[in-house]
């Protein structure tokens, strides 16, 4: 990550899930926190995400999932990035049951931001992710609380 510009975060929904409230709120939290947000929005494929990461020189990828498909789609995002030779950390936000967290970690997800994660937690996790150059993360839920 270059030192002379703000951390650049790509925010996307993968697949068909249209629940974009959380993603839009996170976009504003990150902008307020001094990040640069590349808002890819809805119906992104893994290839589209990887292409945007290269094109926009993205530091962290944030994907939002409320459709129960996280164990299929989140690892696919990581795999697509790694296949393209990118180490970009991937943070997942949304509804991920606790029992799935170890599998998310194994798949190389940097962190999972659960429902009810505070603004400060969101900013801290993205900042930490941007500082990490590998995908050795902690799939520890930051805030396990209610969707708001």
């Amino acid at each position, binding site marked *: 990550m270059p030192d002379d510009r703000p951390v650049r975060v790509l925010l996307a929904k993968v697949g068909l899930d249209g629940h974009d409230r959380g993603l839009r709120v996170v976009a504003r939290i990150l902008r307020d926190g001094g990040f640069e947000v590349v808002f890819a929005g809805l119906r992104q494929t893994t290839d589209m995400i990887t292409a945007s990461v290269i094109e926009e020189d993205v530091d962290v990828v944030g994907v939002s999932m409320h459709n*129960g498909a996280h164990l299929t789609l989140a690892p696919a995002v990581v795999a697509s990035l790694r296949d393209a030779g990118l180490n970009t950390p991937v943070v997942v936000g949304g509804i991920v049951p606790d029992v799935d967290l170890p599998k998310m970690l194994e798949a190389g997800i940097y962190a999972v931001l659960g429902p*009810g994660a505070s603004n400060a937690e969101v900013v801290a996790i993205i900042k930490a992710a941007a500082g990490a150059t590998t995908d050795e993360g902690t799939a520890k839920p930051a805030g396990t*609380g209610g969707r708001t």
Partner: protein
Amino acid sequence: MGDRQKWQAEYDRSSRRDVPFETMSGVPLEPVYGPEGAELPGQWPYTRGPYASMYRSRLWTMRQFAGFGTAADTNHRFKELLASGGSGLSTAFDMPTLLGRDSDDPMAKGEVGRAGVAVDTQADMETLFSGIDLGTVSTSMTINSAAAVVMAMYVGVGDRTGVARQALSGTIQNDILKEYQAQKEYVFPPRPSVRLVTDLMRFATAELPRWHPVSISGYHIREAGSTATQELAFTLANGFAYVEAALAAGLVVDAFAPRLSFFFNAHMDFFEEIAKYRAARRIWAHWMRDRYGATDGRSLQLRFHTQTAGVSLTAQQPEVNMARVAIEALSAVLGGTQSLHTDSYDEALALPTERAARLALRTQQVVAEETGVVHVADPLGGSWFVESLTDELESQAESVFAHLLEVGSGSMLDGVIASIEDGWFGTEIADAAYQFQSKITSGKWVQVGVNGYTDGDDHQPPTLYVDPEVESRQLADLEAIKQARDDDAVRSSVERLSKEATDPTLNLMPALIEAAARYVTVGECMGALESVFGTWVERSYV
């Protein structure tokens, strides 16, 4: 005849449930209270309810939304809900079905049967309703982009099982406008999508007299982050837009308006929610009579389904959600809802388990049987606070209508579509969502278990496990159907669809019903339409 006499005559004519209308201590209760000259339920402008006798005649329909896995899995859950006293079915479809994609579509990977039931062909619908008499049960189907396709399949199931089309009773959501504004399950651009909505309205008006072809929904607008006022205003504006579209398609207002219904959210601000339902009824009555010339009382009476706010549920201390749901359900009933879905307490974690879904239904049954609130219509009518809040929400909604009419140069349909196209609705809703989040962050709004009273979050209930094998089972079933069907018939149905799509004066329902009977898939039908209508990509906004 004065209003009081008219109300009394209607009340006397209505049927009555066989229960004593009195308090627990035996104090006899009037069907409605108020001074001479006060508004009355079932009477213009219907603020106090669409019917004179309200819940004394019939309780609301307890309609629990369910769907996951394959059609057979959901069929089992339907039968369980009917057996435990549920009075209507409500179907949740999976994301690929909602967006008109087949289970074998590459974009469907990981989402088949996840958040609802997977339907690829009419064969899945036959399984979904197997052993259930479509002539006696009322079915709600929550689907929008692919509504016309799935409706054609439902009609097909009725045809095959010998149920007359006039006997089919239920609701299909078929409200595409709020998809662009909030839920984002769109496929085609707004104008051809509105044509599909009106095609289904025309078909239902002609052939399905007991069917509600559109459920104009504020629920999703609220879940996406809007305020109560925005939910009220945007939803009714969409309703007016559909009325204008149907009139433009040649329908007569009193022929279709009695079958329009609404769907609202029940959130946590108790009195504001009640005021919202009351204001909605009053606004609808005024606009339908004064702007659209409706004269049939049923065209003026706004009837609505309610669901408690999924977004108000917390993953922390999830059992607390049962209290939230009870309070929200009570607001819907005090607001005069016609049907209700109560959320399960585990829904912030996953799809509900069978046990949690039953507890949610039991919550409604407690409100209905134990609280006594059903004896008197609009029990909060006349409260200075509630009446004042009702007026305030009405006046704020009217400002939004004025804005949209200005944007549409006098047409609500044009105003709504233009405000979808330029991202106005989305920005308004995103602003409200962010402001609410900021209140939680700053502690100005305390959400129990999230930013206050956080001790004791030590019990995670068991959550529903959707077998990942669902996807492969569904793919195998789809492959078998494709092998067995008549390829020439499929091809000719697909060609007919894309041909008829090019002529906006034609109703696409007959072609869709023919395609469904030939086991043309949802994806093939939608693909044929998409080749003519094109695809919608929303304008970027944050």
